[in-house]
């Protein structure tokens, strides 16, 4: 059964902390509600953690991780199981140890780090807006796992995973380039996509999209982030 347009009150909502309060059904504001449905308020999603049992292989994996890394209970902030995917929100101090355990433990064997990226949750309720997201792949068990570490913009330091997964090198450089997350212990944390002297971190939410207004047949169309929105 699908409820794709129902945003209110799904208990398994992945906490995103985007603070999405909407006051019209269309979300547009500033030029008059055209729908007649004004007054509807969408509740902002809360930071929830899925209660046990998680289902599928997730219980077995978290138990194996707990057994191999006893401090797991302190390091874990939240466990989210959503749409068949497991996300572990962990503290940054425990990141390297947990990644090493995940890689080496014979019951877990997450050999490959598929991708590391960042997400900027500007309206995160705890103030830790920059999230570094790590996707791990276990080829032995055909499983995927996601680790997420949250930091504030004032103290955006996360330990680097290049010792555990050498492939993290460029991914961490890219995350530094676009979000400003500093990976301590990285062999050479420099800008990789933007020019070396570029100011700012472009994929943060408070960085403008840039762009110029375009004139076409007498009218000017503003760049996409300044246009009037229907949503």
């Amino acid at each position, binding site marked *: 059964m699908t409820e794709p347009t129902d945003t209110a009150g799904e208990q398994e909502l992945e906490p995103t902390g985007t603070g999405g309060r909407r006051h019209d059904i269309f979300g547009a504001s500033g030029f008059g509600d055209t729908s007649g449905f004004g007054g509807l308020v969408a509740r902002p999603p809360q930071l929830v953690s899925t209660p046990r049992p998680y289902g599928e292989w997730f219980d077995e994996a978290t138990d194996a991780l707990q057994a191999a890394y006893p401090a797991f209970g302190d390091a874990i902030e939240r466990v989210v199981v959503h749409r068949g995917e497991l996300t572990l929100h962990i503290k940054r101090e425990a990141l390297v140890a947990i990644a090493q355990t995940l890689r080496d433990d014979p019951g877990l064997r997450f050999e490959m780090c598929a991708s590391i990226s960042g997400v900027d949750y500007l309206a995160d309720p705890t103030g830790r807006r920059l999230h570094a997201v790590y996707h791990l792949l276990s080829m032995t068990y055909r499983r995927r796992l996601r680790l997420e570490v949250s930091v504030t913009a004032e103290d955006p330091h996360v330990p680097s995973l290049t010792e555990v997964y050498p492939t993290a090198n460029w991914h961490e450089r890219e995350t530094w380039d676009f979000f400003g997350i500093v990976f301590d212990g990285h062999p050479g944390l420099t800008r990789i996509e933007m*020019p070396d002297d570029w100011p700012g971190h*472009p994929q943060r939410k408070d960085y403008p999209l840039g762009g110029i207004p375009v004139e076409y047949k007498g009218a000017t169309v503003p*760049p996409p982030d300044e246009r009037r929105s229907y949503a």
Partner: protein
Amino acid sequence: MGIEEKIPDGILLTTVAKVLNIARKNSVWPAQFGLACCAIEMMAVGGPRFDIARFGMERFSASPRQADLMIVAGRVSQKMAPVLRQIYDQMPEPKWVLAMGVCASSGGMFNNYAIVQGVDHIVPVDMYLPGCPPRPEMLLDAILKLHDKIRTGPISGKPEHTTIGNSPYVKPIERDTRASKGLAVDAEIPAFTSPLPGAGS
């Protein structure tokens, strides 16, 4: 070609100019500047189906020093812009630039911080070719129009790059925009008054 540039066009060397321009247009060597998706269509133009060799242009010169035409095929990022200018500067006169695709012509669908909104911000462009990506036939059409431009152009290849008003093309571009007619660019939207009785705005 020193003395011909100093003599005004059309006085002394008309026949020579014609022959020279025909020779130039028949042997344009493109500089290889394929950047993104348009580069694939440019390669397809070099392929056997849309054969560019019939125009003598199959030698995509890797070295700009031996190239005549720079086909900017693809989106030009801020990091790539100085490289583009350097390659353009390394090309000897006469040289032409064809902005292939919307990204090279105007920034295309990427109206953002990372893309130069049209390579005419960096180099003077002789032919703009829209499309995302343009079909190989469209590229060939643009090349043929450029050939016409070369053939009917002045002997020095093209007029001074920096003066836009010196175009040898007599017909001015007629614009049909509000700005050209002296009207305000953004039309005033009259305030909406509802015809319903008793309604607000």
